[in-house]
């Protein structure tokens, strides 16, 4: 291992829950996160000063396992929560944390933040604010309870447009709900998919398309798309040898920001050539999928470009039995792109793909946080290291390798870590565009880390 990144503890989110926390969901635009706890509550913390802003209580009768923020909301935040009580809650709140906390987080622009304001926090302001907020109806409003699953809800995810909400459960089903956005909090059941042979542990939407990925206790990852008004499975990826605990997608390339593999051993011009080739390759296969499992591994999956599927589909072991009912045109072939370097001794519970930098973080029952970086494998390196490297790509595909670049042992002391996520850094120490890593553990603690290359 060549340690190339530094993982530094920035702060804890305080006060913590006294019970196990499962997951922390960063808000898409505001510097706030929602933490799900076994104490049946959801805690909303500020990433500006790392303190508790609100505790959402009263909606769930058992552990809150999962939460997701609806994207593209202006002026109001909408949070979906999934619980062991088999229900999904939808919560709403007018955006006003910024003004109240004096952090200058305007409703209109999440970017506008004056560092001076964060310093001048009223010492007694919080208590009076809480009292005032309730009267001003500025607290979290319970909007609707989505009832349908037969047992514990494990994961919820909003589609890129925010129109669709996917939920999954131990009852082996995935439900897709459409937010009718009719001002009356009505949701319509669009589809119920029951192909998984075991608990569905996680669902995650494609970053731009209406394509859903799910991971399960049956050790498979499945992909789902709508075809002529009917939602159906388009791929079944068999590769993991244990429960698939979590999934995340690669970020799509944003204007002028490179989030693909890096290289230190080539010249500027060679690098831009590699990047150009990488770009065209990614344009064909789309963003890759990242998964982690009870089998201790973290893997990356790539969709085979449509044109090469004609020949590949028959020989590939990555797909299930071809469907007779569905025309094969919608089926996708997903291949294992890489198995990341071994870093965990116990089940890996979460992975997070940094959409801006391309760095991958993983964590799990061994209490460790691992960071990986993808690098181009140049022709010379390839000749030196013979052929059997980490990567599995072949033929005309550009070769890359994943390198373990940082490990934090005992990140939450002796406790298991259940989740890790990248969030935009918002405290006063931040300079420009930068992410923090937010980790969530069994003892109720949530920690914020900086990861610097």
């Amino acid at each position, binding site marked *: 291992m060549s340690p190339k990144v530094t993982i530094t503890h920035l702060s804890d989110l305080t006060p913590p829950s006294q019970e196990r926390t499962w997951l922390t969901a960063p808000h898409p635009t505001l510097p706030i996160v929602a933490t799900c706890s076994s104490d049946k509550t959801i805690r909303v913390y500020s990433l500006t000063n790392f303190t508790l802003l609100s505790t959402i209580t009263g909606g769930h009768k058992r552990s809150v396992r999962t939460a997701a923020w609806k994207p593209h909301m202006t002026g109001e935040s909408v949070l979906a929560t999934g619980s*062991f009580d088999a229900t999904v809650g939808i919560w709403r709140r007018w955006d006003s944390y910024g003004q109240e906390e004096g952090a200058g987080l305007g409703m209109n622009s999440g970017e506008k933040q004056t560092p001076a304001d964060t310093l001048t926090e009223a010492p007694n302001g919080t208590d009076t604010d809480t009292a005032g907020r309730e009267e001003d109806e500025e607290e979290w409003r319970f909007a609707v309870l989505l009832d349908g699953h037969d047992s514990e809800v494990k994961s919820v995810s909003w589609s890129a447009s925010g129109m669709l909400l996917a939920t999954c459960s131990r009852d082996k089903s995935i439900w897709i709900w459409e937010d009718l956005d009719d001002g009356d909090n009505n949701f319509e059941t669009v589809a119920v998919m029951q192909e998984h042979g075991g608990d569905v542990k996680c669902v995650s939407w494609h970053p731009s398309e209406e394509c859903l990925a799910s991971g399960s206790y049956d050790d498979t990852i499945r992909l789902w798309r709508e075809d002529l008004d009917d939602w159906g499975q388009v791929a079944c990826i068999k590769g993991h040898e244990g*429960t698939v605990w979590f999934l995340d997608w690669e970020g799509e390339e944003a204007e002028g920001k490179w989030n693909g593999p890096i290289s230190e051993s080539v010249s500027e011009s060679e690098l831009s050539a590699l990047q150009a080739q990488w770009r065209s390759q990614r344009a064909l296969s789309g963003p890759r999928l990242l998964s982690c499992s*009870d089998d201790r591994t973290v893997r990356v999956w790539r969709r085979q470009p449509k044109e090469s599927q004609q020949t590949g589909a028959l020989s590939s072991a990555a797909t299930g039995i071809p469907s007779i009912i569905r025309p094969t045109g919608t089926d996708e072939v997903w291949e294992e792109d890489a198995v990341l370097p071994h870093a965990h001794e116990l089940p890996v519970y979460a992975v997070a793909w940094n959409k801006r930098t391309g760095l991958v973080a993983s964590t799990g029952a061994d209490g460790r946080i691992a960071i990986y970086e993808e690098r181009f494998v140049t022709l010379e390196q390839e000749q030196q290291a013979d052929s059997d490297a980490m990567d599995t790509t072949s033929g005309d595909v550009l070769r890359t390798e994943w390198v373990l670049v940082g490990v934090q*042992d005992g990140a939450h002391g002796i406790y298991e870590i259940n989740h890790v996520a990248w969030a935009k850094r918002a405290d006063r120490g931040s300079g420009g565009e930068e992410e923090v890593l937010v980790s969530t553990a069994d003892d109720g603690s949530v920690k914020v880390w900086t990861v610097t290359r």
Partner: protein
Amino acid sequence: MVHIYVCTTSALRTRVLTEDLGLAREPDNVIAIFPLPSSWPHLTTYPVTTLPWSLYPPYFTMAEIQNSNPTILNAADLPTRLRPTATRKSEYAGIFTSALPLAPVDFESAPSSDSEDDNLLEEPIDEQEIYDLISSISDPEHPISLGELAVVSLPDIAIRPTLPDVPDSPLQTVTVLITPTITHCSLATVIGLGVRVRLEQSLPSRFRMDVRIKEGTHSTGDEVNKQLADKERVAAALENGALMGVIAKMMETCH
């Protein structure tokens, strides 16, 4: 009063109690779950005498004993540090009777149950201590301890470092192999869960539990093992009143 919960074949997902940890919505007074012949009208209650006891085995029952004649070990012969016994010596007694000093039988000094909690934190925890924690759990269908039934035994307990490559890591993994009394015992999951819960409640958080069915001793061992290793399912099971009632009853006999 005895309640019998009856479900139709189509509602068989309710058999989660044994097939699936973490039953979500079972009434608290369930003692047996039956599938009914599909020809029966889908009523919700039947007189007990009309239930097809002989046709269909209940999926879960506290009333019927599956193995009515298990092999039982003598409690005094089980290895323990909690009370002074000559257990481990007894097998050598014939040869070493005169050679062994009689007085200090428990030279590792037995902790009294009062100070047990303090000792857990200070003294290193060994296999014997794990055994003492779990051997006194009762079998859910016999009023007999898991130690006496040889469902758990000292040689099937191991403690090892969780992260061998991190020498100063305090994490340790406790492996307990369970030997069900019969190979198709549907209560293996419940027994395994009881052992796991007992250890999680008694040991410091730096211990990771690895409770498994001993290889070759159960017809669906892999399935049971996957459930027992699933953190989410175990967590959900702990929030389930009906299941925890069973577990609590098993632990009544623990110190």
